[in-house]
Every structure is written in C-alpha cells, then in structure tokens.
C-alpha cells in the first residue's frame, strides 16, 4: 500500500493527562513536559515511522471538554472536525478516569476513528483501581490501550494500533452509545435525518452536527450553512430548538451535558472497580504540610529565600570564572590577534570595549540565570507551583485577584514577557489586565545581574539579603498597586472565580529540568548574541560620537544622559552615567550592566599596555583549574544554601570583588544611593518586549498605562528610599 501523504494522528486529552509525554515517547521529540495543567497552548507536530508507514503526530492543546468556549477548546475541536486526522488518540489519565471521560464522550460523538490510551496506568493500579479494558473497548467500539508513557510502556502497542487503523479505519469508528433525554434525542434524530440528506457535508457526521446545532455551536452552523440546501435544515434546527427551550428553559445545553455525565457515570460503573475509601496518596501527605494553615505561606517564602541564596552563592564562583575567562584569555587573545592584523585603534576599541565588554558582561550572568531557571523548573515540574497558588489565593484576594493570577506573577520572576502571555489562562478580562499591569513589578531574571553586581560591589556579605529584599519589595509594590487598582480602576475584578487543578506531585526528571532550564538560558544567550551585541555596538558608537571625542561625558550619549540626569537627583543617583544606563535599560534590563561597564570602565582606566604574546598553555591550565575550583566552591555553597543559618563551609576571607566595574561603582555610589538605584531598576518598565506583549494582549492603551505606572512608582519609591535614608543618617 502506498500513500501520497503521511498518516495524521491527533493527540487529544485533558490538561496534565500526559499528552506531551505520549507525544515525546511516540516521536522522540524533546517537547518540554510541565507538571502544570495546560502546557500545550498551541498545537505541536512531530513524526515517526512504523513498519514503513510515516506518521505525523499533532499534539492538541489540553482541554477538559469541547464546548468551544476557550481558545484551546476551539483549536482542538476545529482540528479534529475540520482537518480530519486519520486517527484521534485520546490520552486519558487512568487514575482520574471519570473526569477524563467527559472529553472522551465528546470525542466519541464526533465519530472519527479513535484510540483511547489509558495513561499513567501504574498510578491507577497503585490506587487500587481495576479497569476492565476489554469491556471498555467493547462498549465504546474503539481500541483501548494501557500505557505508562513516561516509562515508554505501551508505546509500541500504540504505534501498532495506529498502523492497524491506518489500514482499516472502520475498526475504530466509535459506536453511537450516547443517548440524550427523550425530547432532545427526538430532536437530534429528526435533525440528523434532515442533515443526512444534505449534499456536501465535508465528511462531518450528521449526528454530531445535529447535536452541535442544538448546542448552538458556531462552527457547526457555519459548516451546515455552506451546503446548498442549508436554509431548510437551519430553519428546522431553529424550530426544534425553540420547542426544546419551552421544555428545558434556557438549560438545553446543561441537559446535553447532564446526558454526557450520565454516559460517563454509566461507563465508569461498568469498567472501573475501585476501593471504597480512596487511599491517602503520597501527594496528599505532602499537601498536608505545604497547604497547612500556618505553615503554608512561611514555607513558600522560605523556599523562595533558599532559591535566591542558591542563585547568589552557587552561581557566584562560576561567574567569577567566566569573568576571568573573558577579561583574561578572551580579551588578551583578541588583542594579540588584532595587533597581528595591524588593526586600527578604533577597531580594537570597538571589538574590545564595545563587543567583548558589552556581551561579556552579560554572559557572566548565565550561571545565575541557569540556577534561577532550574529552581523555577523544579517548582513547576514537581507540582509545587500549583500549591503555591492555593496557598497564596487568600493573599491575592487582597489585590482583588485570585490564586490563578499568582502563577503568571511567579513566572514573571523568570521573564515578564511569557508571564504576560500566561495571563491568557485567566478568563475574566479585568483580572487579566490587572495581572498584566502588576507583572512588571515582579523582578525578572534580567534585573538580577544588576542587583548582583551592585550587591558584590557595595553590600559585601549582605548582598543576598539585599537581593531577597528587592524581590520582596517588588511583591509588596505589586500588592499595593493591585489593591489600589482593584479598588478604583477595576471594581468588577473580584467576581472572577478561582478554580485550579493541583497535579499529582512527581519527581522532576533530570532531562525535563535540563530542557526547561536550557530552553530559557539559550533564549537569553541568543538575546545576548543579538540584541545586546547590537545595543552594545550602538552604545559604543554613541559614546564615541562626535568622532574622536575623548571624554565620554561629551559624547552624544553623554549629552542625552546629562539632560535626563537631574530628574534622578532627588533619588540620589543624578549622574549622567546612571541615567544613561537606565535609558538603555528601558530597551532591555540585560544591557544596564553592559552599558555601565562601557561607560565607567571606559572612563576609569586607559587601556593597559598590550602584551605582544600570551602563553597558551598557562591560559588553558588556569582556565581549567579555575573551573575545577569554581565547581568545588559552588558545591560547598549549595550545601550551605540548603542549611540556612548554619555555615558548613565558612568563607575563608571576604573576597571583596576587585573587578574594574566594582571599583568604579564603589566610587560612584554610596550604599544608600545604590539601594535607591536598585529600587528604581526593580520597578521601572522592564523592557520594550514586555511593553509590546502588553500591547498585544490588552491593547496599547494599557501598555502605555503600564509604562506610566512603572516610571512613576519607580521614581517615587527610589526617591523615598534615598530621602528617608538620608534623614535617618544612613549613607
């Protein structure tokens, strides 16, 4: 048998039923699998070949039903009914059978060839569930398979079943087993008969269209109205619907849903036997602690504190190592190379002061970002993040928001841009916009380098506390802004409903964590390679224009920054250098530090005499030894961070960092003005990408509001910190 196109398989199922895991197991793809309901918002595609048959797999967004209310449900329903995949694979969480079967009931109604995969079968067995698979298959008329996709169990059987159905699709056409209430059933049949006579139904099953017309589904109506004799059928549908409304009131679709539940209950009763009292699971035991009335919130805050300590301390040795690598061998060898090529002085300056200094100062932060992303991935993949939402719901109610809004805000710690997009999962529009306005106050990872550099330069051993404090300030400001906005700007926001599924805890797989961490880190590095390189070069140009300018303060960049600087005088950092780095930081926070190193270091020291040659062996040896030492230090710091309060490995000496930038910053800032500066960096507009995301999600008006909010709150608080600090006689 030869085919002109590959077989197409659509994966459908509830969020968190393991669709993505099945997808990866089938296709060998590396799609990130999160323990968070609704991982797949867009559909994803992959391929595999079985017995010479090429199969395309489409992973549809996870949905609980196909009522076409939410974008995910519309995507899933439209794909199955319009694209006519050859096989629909319904991934079902076997440990949650009854709830998952509602979607199954709707998929069966569509009437496409189908396979039901009972995933996480091992967990169902641990719970004492017994599922009669043969009976199940007989009742629904399609193949039913058991699987443990995370361990690859049952995947071969699934491939084989797909192959078989590709050969004989009739073997997997669902039996029409779902019947509605008497009145509705009669109307459905009448309509089905009328639809069956229509030419050109584009392969839709008449009964499915009939049910959907009675449900008032827009897609079904559109399909039918394309047929030449649609008018009569649509008129019949309206007449029947009128009649049903007289019987059921407005609740016709609730009667439809009830019938589906009846079907699901009946099916469950026939195929599933479970113990009388559901056993208390390991997940429940963890939940007893993490959702505890008094322990829940302190535990969450403590976990965040551990995370920031890890970020600060575990990453630090590697950061020093990268810094040494870039300012030592990389810069040195580049200089050697450029001199050998007799490059002109301006080119040497462009490469070394512009490109290497700019990008290098950002790459230094890759270790701390990786630790941060890893920690977030761990919380998400393990299932803890959803518990944090539960624990924080009551606190969020204070800002007029609910626990669901908490997740985008936590994601904001990683990067504000995906966090803004994540607000899509909030149904209520006002709640969505309000959350989107508060996200910029969540300190994203790009701001972290600024804290770290200032922390190391000016706060010594208290740097970790300062960083943690800044995150807390961000949260508190978000809380107050949320409270005020909910009170005056979004009075209707309190009506939104909080409901969230808490996934089972699971031990994150090293591969999953690595993928998750690497995905974000790679994005950052790519940004460093393009946007940041671009801005660093532009900045170098502006700093050296008009051509031949000696003092950076006289350059174009210096002039603009000088004009802005007086605005920041009340906040204690009214220098053109500070203003300039804040201006470039508007584009992206990643460039604040690279701008500073260009301005300050360019100012502070003239180029050291360049050695004519370097010893490659010494460089290689130093680099390797440095890496080993860094790993050792990081390991000690890791153990220390996990046992707060006890220092297992006391620092030998307070290694006050002697990088050029630290020296320059100590000269330019007092601890108080540095703190005010950091508060400003924390609170003002995160980056143009966030503004663009806000504009896309909520419209330009709200994006502008957000920028205005950020700039004014940041200025007010930074000024407040500086002025109060001065009154108290600090700094």
């Amino acid at each position, binding site marked *: 048998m030869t085919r002109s196109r590959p077989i197409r398989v659509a994966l459908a199922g509830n969020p968190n039923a393991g669709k993505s895991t099945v997808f990866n197991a089938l296709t060998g793809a590396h799609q990130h699998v999160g323990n968070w309901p609704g991982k797949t918002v867009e559909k994803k595609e992959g391929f595999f070949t079985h017995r010479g048959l090429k199969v395309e797999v489409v992973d549809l967004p996870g*949905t609980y039903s196909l009522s076409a209310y939410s974008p995910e449900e519309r995507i899933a329903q439209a794909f199955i009914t319009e694209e006519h995949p050859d096989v629909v694979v319904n991934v079902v969480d076997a440990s949650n*059978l*009854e709830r998952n079967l509602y979607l199954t009931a709707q998929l069966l109604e569509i009437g496409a060839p189908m396979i039901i995969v009972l995933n996480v079968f091992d967990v169902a067995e641990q719970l004492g569930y017994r599922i009669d698979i043969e009976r199940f298959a007989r009742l629904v008329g399609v193949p039913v398979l058991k699987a443990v996709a995370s361990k690859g169990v049952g995947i071969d059987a699934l491939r084989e079943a797909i192959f078989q159905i590709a050969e004989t699709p009739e073997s997997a056409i669902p039996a029409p087993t779902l019947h509605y209430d008497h009145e509705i059933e009669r109307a459905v049949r009448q309509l089905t008969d009328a639809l069956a006579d229509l030419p050109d139904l584009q392969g839709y099953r008449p009964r499915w269209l009939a049910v959907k017309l009675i449900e008032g589904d827009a897609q079904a109506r559109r399909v039918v109205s394309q047929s030449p004799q649609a008018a009569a059928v649509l008129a019949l549908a309206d007449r029947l619907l009128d009649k049903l409304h007289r019987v059921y009131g407005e609740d016709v*679709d609730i009667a439809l849903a009830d019938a589906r539940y009846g079907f699901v209950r009946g099916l469950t009763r026939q195929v599933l036997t479970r113990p009388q009292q559901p056993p208390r699971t390991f*997940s*429940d035991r963890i939940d007893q602690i993490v959702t505890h009335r008094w322990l829940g919130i302190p535990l969450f805050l403590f976990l965040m504190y551990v995370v920031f300590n890890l970020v600060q301390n575990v990453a630090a040795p590697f950061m020093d190592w990268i810094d040494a690598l870039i300012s030592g061998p990389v810069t040195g060898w580049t200089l050697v190379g450029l001199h050998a090529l007799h490059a002109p002085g301006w080119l040497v300056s462009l490469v070394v002061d512009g490109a290497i200094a700019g990008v290098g100062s950002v790459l230094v932060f890759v270790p701390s970002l990786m630790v941060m992303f890893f920690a977030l991935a761990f919380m998400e993949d393990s299932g803890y993040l959803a518990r944090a939402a539960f624990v924080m719901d009551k606190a969020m109610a204070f800002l007029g928001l609910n626990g669901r809004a908490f997740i985008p805000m936590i994601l904001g710690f990683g990067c504000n841009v995906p966090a803004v997009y994540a607000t899509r999962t909030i149904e209520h529009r006002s709640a969505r916009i309000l959350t989107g306005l508060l996200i910029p106050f969540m300190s994203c990872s790009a701001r972290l380098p600024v804290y770290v550099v200032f922390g190391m330069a000016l706060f010594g051993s208290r740097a970790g506390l300062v960083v943690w404090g800044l995150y807390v300030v961000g949260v508190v400001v978000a809380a107050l802004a949320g409270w005020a906005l909910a009170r005056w700007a979004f009075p209707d926001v309190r009506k939104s409903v909080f409901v969230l599924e*808490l996934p089972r805890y699971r031990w994150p797989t090293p591969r999953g964590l690595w993928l998750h961490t690497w995905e974000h880190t790679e994005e950052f590095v790519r940004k460093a390679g393009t946007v940041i390189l671009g801005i660093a070069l532009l900045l170098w140009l502006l700093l050296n224009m008009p051509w031949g300018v000696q003092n950076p303060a006289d350059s174009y960049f210096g002039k603009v920054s000088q004009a802005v600087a007086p605005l920041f005088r009340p906040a204690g950092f009214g220098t053109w250098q500070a203003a300039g780095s804040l201006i470039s930081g508007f584009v992206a926070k990643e460039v604040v530090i690279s701008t500073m190193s260009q301005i300050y270091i360019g100012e502070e020291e003239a180029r050291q005499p360049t050695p004519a040659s370097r010893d490659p062996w010494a460089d290689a040896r130093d680099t390797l030894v440095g890496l080993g030492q860094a790993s050792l230090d990081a390991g000690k710091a890791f153990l220390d961070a996990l046992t707060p309060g006890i220092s297992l490995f006391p620092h030998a000496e307070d290694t006050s960092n002697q990088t050029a930038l630290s020296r320059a910053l100590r000269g330019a800032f007092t601890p108080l003005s540095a703190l005010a500066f950091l508060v400003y960096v924390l609170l003002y507009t995160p980056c143009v990408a966030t503004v663009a995301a806000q504009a896309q999600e909520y419209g330009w008006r709200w994006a502008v509001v957000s920028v205005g909010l950020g700039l004014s709150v940041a200025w007010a608080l930074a000024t407040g910190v500086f002025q109060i600090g001065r009154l108290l006689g600090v700094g």
Partner: protein
Amino acid sequence: MTPEGATMPLPMLPEGAQAQIVEVRAGRRLKERLAGLGLHAGAQVRILRDNGGPLLLAIGNTRLALGRGMAHKILVQPVPTEVSRL
C-alpha cells in the same frame, strides 16, 4: 444519618467530610467549566483543606483548589463516612 434533603453550601462542611453535590449555582459557561473539572451535580467531593481561604477538594483522584466565593454557590448533601479521616 443526615436527614433527607438537608443541603448546605460546600464551605460549611468540616475538613475531612465527604458530600455529594446537589446543585452548582452558576452561569452556563462557568457551570460547564466546573463540570469539566468534575464539579457537577451528583459528584462526590471531600474537603481536604479549609484554611478559611480557598478549599482544597478531592473529587475521585483529582485535587482541586476552589475559591471560597464559588464554593458557597455549590450546594451539597453530607455523606456519612464510617471513619472521617483526612
């Protein structure tokens, strides 16, 4: 035994209690969404945690966090269990 017909809003149940949902008072979209998560008339729920904020519910093997406001609109009938344990 609970007298026939004694229904109450979900948050009035104590922690660890089991109940059957009698009615979900919500608009059609919300009702559909909750039903998709297993909260529909006839379903058995157990309250795992009630901190005065949202409720942590068990429906079969599903664990749901449900805001208190919404929980008040769910009417239930307590089901006596031999040992009420969490």
